[in-house]
Structures are given as C-alpha cells and as structure tokens.
C-alpha cells in the first residue's frame, strides 16, 4: 500500500533523511521509531505531500504520491503530531465537516460521524466544543478525524501523546480495528510498549535511514539486552567485573542472565550485602533493543517530549 524508496531530505546543510526505504502492506501496522529529530515527522509530511523531498520516490496504492499528491490524498488518513481540531466548533462539526471535505455525502458524513464517535467513545461529547473536551477526548477526536473516510493508509504521528490510559487504549483498539479492516498503518511513537501491544512491525529510523526492521519479537531477540543493578544505602561497594555509580552497582559488561549475575554478586559481596536496599532487573524488551540499536537514552527523549 505504501512504498517509500530512497527518500532524502535536508534542511539547509543538515541532512535528515539520507535514503529511507520502507513499505507498509494492507492490514499491516508499521511502528516507526527514532530519536527526536530522526525525521519521522518529516517522512510523514513527505508521504502526505505537506513537504517536498530532495530525492527518492513515494507510492501510495501504486500511485506516485510525489507527482500526484491530491490523487492519493483521498486514500490517506493523517493525524499529525500536533493536535489539529477546531476548538470553537463542536466535536460533531469537526467530524462532519472533515467527512464532507473527504467527499462524503451529507447522509454518509452524518452516519460516519456517529459511527466514529461511537468507536472512540465520543458520542456523549459530540455536542461539546473542542475547547470543552478533556485532553484525552481532544486526542481521540483528533484521531477520529483521520479515520472518518476509511483511509487505505493511516498515518498516525505520536497519536497518544497527552492521552490518558483509557484514551490510549481506545486509540490502540482503533488502530487494531483499522488494520483488521485491511488499512495499512504507519504509527510513530516514543511509547514502545504500545508497539508491543499492537504487535507491530518495527522500523527504527536512525542516522537518516531505516537502520533495523523486523517484528517486535525479532527485534527483541536480536537486539534486546537484559540488565541488573544493585542499589545500596550509601556508596556502592567495589566488586570485580561490576561498575559503581554512586549508590548503584551494575555489571561492566552486558549479562545474559541478570538473575544469576545478581545472585553471584550478592555472594561475592559478603557482609557488605547488609547495605543492599534494592535490585533492579530488566528483561529483554523493545526498549532495551531500541537502546542497543540507537545507543541513546530513550527514556530521556520521552521525558523531554512530555516536558515540551
């Protein structure tokens, strides 16, 4: 459904995309992850015709999206990263008007507005203005506006930022339902657990290219690492093969079995173990795989996003 080949893009002298190749089949969910500034939003903007690329090709349903952006626009559903709703219009007006803009008849737009509101648990809020909705409701409305016309390719750019637990679950449910209905979904997020919940295919955008691609399971098996850290009251003791950092003590090299490594360390520490206050064990996960691939502290990025 979506085929991106060799897409390049630079902002002035700063290259962001250096030759991105990816494809998303009908019914597939592709989770596109990468650091802030990796080019995820730029890539989505290029696919939707909002930005021009410097080179490469983009095809949606076999149609050249770069040469004919308006021909493919009807097949696309976009929920941009920034919230995009009309705060002075009601939720119903937001939905209905975008359904009409997508070319639906009055009757179809009215029916689909009610259906999508029901899907995203917004029926009771249909009469409320955008600025009267809660943060999670706004986020759901924002997503609903992208799926009104049953797009064949759905582009969701960090759709759950600012959403509460219930709203997030609702959005993920809709993504699953859309994929089940044969929609191709390109989903960017910093919340990697969402991709595990969606059992999405993963593409890691790093250094301007898709550095790694595979299923969640494949990526975790190939790149995921386990870790263990011992926490002490006061400075951490010295132990061969382990590195002390303040009150924390962690293996100097990655360990295959964190439980066994911790047990061995506790035996070796002898009486100093009485100062032990906690043991942190991390199993192989998408997050640890991501960290291994990109070498960056993912959690710091997510925190900076939330702060922003």
């Amino acid at each position: 459904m979506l085929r991106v080949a060799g897409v390049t893009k630079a902002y002035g002298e700063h290259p962001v995309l250096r030759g991105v190749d990816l494809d998303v089949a009908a019914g597939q969910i592709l989770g596109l992850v990468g650091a802030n500034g990796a080019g995820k939003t730029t890539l989505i903007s290029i696919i939707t015709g909002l930005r021009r690329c410097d080179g490469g090709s983009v095809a949606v349903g076999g149609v050249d999206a770069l040469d004919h952006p308006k021909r493919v626009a009807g097949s696309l559903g976009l929920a941009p990263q920034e919230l995009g709703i009309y705060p002075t219009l009601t939720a119903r007006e937001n939905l209905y008007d975008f359904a009409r803009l997508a070319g639906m008849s009055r009757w179809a737009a009215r029916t689909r507005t009610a259906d999508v509101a029901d899907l995203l648990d917004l029926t009771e809020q249909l009469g409320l203005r955008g600025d009267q909705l809660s943060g999670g409701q706004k986020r759901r409305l924002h997503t609903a506006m992208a799926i009104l016309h049953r797009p064949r390719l759905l582009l969701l750019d960090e759709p759950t930022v600012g959403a509460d637990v219930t709203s997030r679950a609702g959005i993920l449910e809709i993504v699953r339902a859309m994929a089940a209905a044969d929609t191709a979904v390109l989903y960017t997020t910093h919340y990697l657990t969402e991709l595990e919940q969606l059992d999405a295919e993963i593409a890691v955008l790093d250094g301007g290219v898709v550095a790694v691609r595979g299923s969640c399971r494949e990526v975790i098996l190939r790149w995921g690492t386990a870790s263990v850290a011992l926490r002490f009251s006061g400075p951490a003791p010295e132990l061969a093969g382990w590195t002390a950092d303040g009150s924390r003590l962690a293996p100097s090299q990655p360990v295959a079995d964190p439980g066994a490594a911790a047990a061995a360390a506790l035996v070796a520490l002898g009486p100093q173990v009485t100062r032990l206050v906690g043991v942190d064990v991390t199993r192989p996960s998408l997050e640890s795989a991501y960290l291994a691939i990109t070498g960056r502290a993912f959690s710091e990025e997510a925190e900076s996003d939330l702060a922003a």
Partner: protein
Amino acid sequence: MISPRSLAVSRISGRLLLSDPAPMIVTIAMPLILAPFLVPAARAQLQLAGYATAGGGDQVIPGLAVLFAFLSTQLVGTLFFREHAWGTWDRLRASPASTADIVVGKVAPLYLAQLAQFGVLLTVGALLFGFRPDGSVAALAVVAAVFAAMLVAYAVMLVALCPTMDMALVLGNLGGMVMAGLGGALAPVSSLPQWAQAVAHISPAYWALDAMRSITLDHAGLPGVAGPVGILLLFGVGFGVVAAWRFRPAAVKIGTT
C-alpha cells in the same frame, strides 16, 4: 463556480465565523453608533459643495461602510492564521482539497460577510440616517460586490506576505485606516489637505467612494460608475497576483488562538 472541496472548506470557515461573531457584529454596529455624530458635519460639508438637498448620511454612510469594510479584512487574516495555531492547516492541506480550493473556500464566507455588512449598513443608513441613493441601486450593488472582492484579495495578500497574525492585523488595520481616510471615508476628499488630495487616487477607497458618491448624489447608473469599478477591479487583480505569487502553503505562520 465554486468546487465541492471549496464548499466543504467554506462550511468550516462559515461555522468558525459564526462561532465567534463578535468581530462581525462590531464592524456592523460601530459605524451605526458613529454615524449620528458625523451626520451634521457631513451635511454642512455637502451643502457647501453645492448639494443643497443632500443629507449628511449620503457622505457618512458610504464612508463608514468603506472604512469598516477595510477593518473587517482582519477576519480573513484571523481565519488563516488561526488554522496554523489550531494545527488544522496541515489537516486541510493533507485533504483532497487543493490550495486553491482551500483559499477560495476560506475567503468565500468572508466575501459574503462583507456584502452582508454593506447591505446592513446601507439599509439601516437609509432608514435612520438619511442615506438616499438616488441613482441605480443595481450599480451600488455592483460597486459593493467589486469592492468587497478587492478587499478579500487585499486580505489574502496580507496573509501571504506576513509571517505572523499580529503583523497581518497591524498592517491590515493601519493600511485600511490610511486608505479609507485618504479615499474620503471620513471626510470628502475635497476637504482634505492638498497633499492628501494629490495622492488620494492611489487608494482603492477613493474609487469606491467616488462611485458611491456618483450614484448617491449625481444619479449615476452602471455606465456612470464603470470607470471607478474598472479601477477597483485592477486593484483587486493586482492584490490577487501578489497574493498568488507570494502565497506559500507550507510556510510557517504564527497565529494566536
């Protein structure tokens, strides 16, 4: 003809206008509040100019209509810039609507609002303030239609040229006041200082008021206002060309909510 996509965008813009009608109400109410204060002086000026039976409303009502039509162009800027502030601009651009569909769809309700503003002011002016268009009412409608179209083109040009909403509003209001004042909206051009009379012709307001004055005071019909209307059309085309040349859909615009 307006395309279905433009109509869909117009529906949104129309709703946005109606969801916050205060600016529209102000641009209609304010001239009606000001009119009674200005009518006596205008009557004296017209009588001095040789129109013995003219009422002050014949000068004041078209003048205020033109002045506040200029000021209401800020609604165009507001509608465009708020799309950026609300994050909906990219949604519109990613839709099947072309840039032309979006621009036409956004300004169409504003154009109708301008015409409605003219209609209300001239009608209430006739009922309450002695505005008597003795010439062709059809000609008056044509002048209003062309002038409103020119103003919309002027407003879109400001949107195209200004990176921020504040800049567009300041330039729109300042430019509107200067052009309206210079064109004779506040006092007849003949009563302005010599330097102002010399440059009055560069203001589209001058030609709009010249046409309205011909209809109101000199019984003109459509042929009598063809010249000024043609010049207004030229202004509109000029503004439109600059707007089309400078309008960048992907440009970053800073609006406020």
